[in-house]
């Protein structure tokens, strides 16, 4: 049973490369800080806490859609391993 779980876990890693990791964490901060500003102003203008919560929920959804999946564009910079040389 645990072997099967390990197999499944290995398939669910969905790694991204180093450069994409840096970009993604920057993106997350930008999306959330802009989102906080937007939701605060939107909630204040409409004078409704419910609108604010909904807007923030949408922002979180957008952030997770951008960041969580391992898009192919996040795996363009594969590590170049040193090719093994055969010493003669």
């Amino acid at each position: 049973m645990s072997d099967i779980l390990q197999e499944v876990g290995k398939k669910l890693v969905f790694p991204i490369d180093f450069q994409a990791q840096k970009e993604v964490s920057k993106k997350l901060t930008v999306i959330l800080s802009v989102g906080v500003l937007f939701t605060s102003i939107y909630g204040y203008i409409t004078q409704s806490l419910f609108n604010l919560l909904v807007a923030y929920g949408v922002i979180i959804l957008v952030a997770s859609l951008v960041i969580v999946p391992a898009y192919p564009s996040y795996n363009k910079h594969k590590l170049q391993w040193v090719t093994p040389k055969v010493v003669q």
Partner: protein
Amino acid sequence: MFSLSQRLQNVSNQALTFSFFIIGFIVASSWYQLYRDDAFNTPGAVQALGANLNMRTSRYYGSNQGKPKQNAKVNFDLDVDLSSLFNWNTKQVFIYLTAEYDGSKKPNTKSVVTFWDKIITSKKDAVLKLSNQKSKYTVWDLEDKMEGRDLTFKLQWNIQPWVGPLVFGETIGNTTFTIPIEEKKVKENENDSNTSADESNGTNKPKRKKRKAKARSNSV
């Protein structure tokens, strides 16, 4: 940020962290709105019309070992507009009419009692115009009698917000009111044994009207 679960955790953590900024903004903006709408200077006109005194022998009304305790209720007029307390962060407003008075045997003691309260849940109901409203609670003192006390009435409010700490305040304008001293001392001796029966009796209603209420109002 390497794996799927790490990215998911990062997103949720950072979303939670940033939500504290939103909370701070909500609290700060609602306080700003309270000051902008001048909520702390709301004029409130309380006018006490009369007092209703009863001797109670139940221990639920402050009586100790069968010794009767004088209970007081007041009638009052209230005219106040509390709509400035309502903004986007107000869940409900609790208003309470308090009276402050000195002890008669110990004049340096101060007591504060609540005669009446109300919960307002929407801005529509925030304009209050009550006339001859009977107080909700019957009040007794540690000392035996309430009569002859000088009460200073204040309408206090308490905002219960959706987010953030409670906000307390009171309306501008106090009203002083002296509870009139009971005049029928002679009758009290006759009815000593059946005071509790007397107070529920409707026959002494006309006599209550004779007690003159001396209300002087300093309200703005």
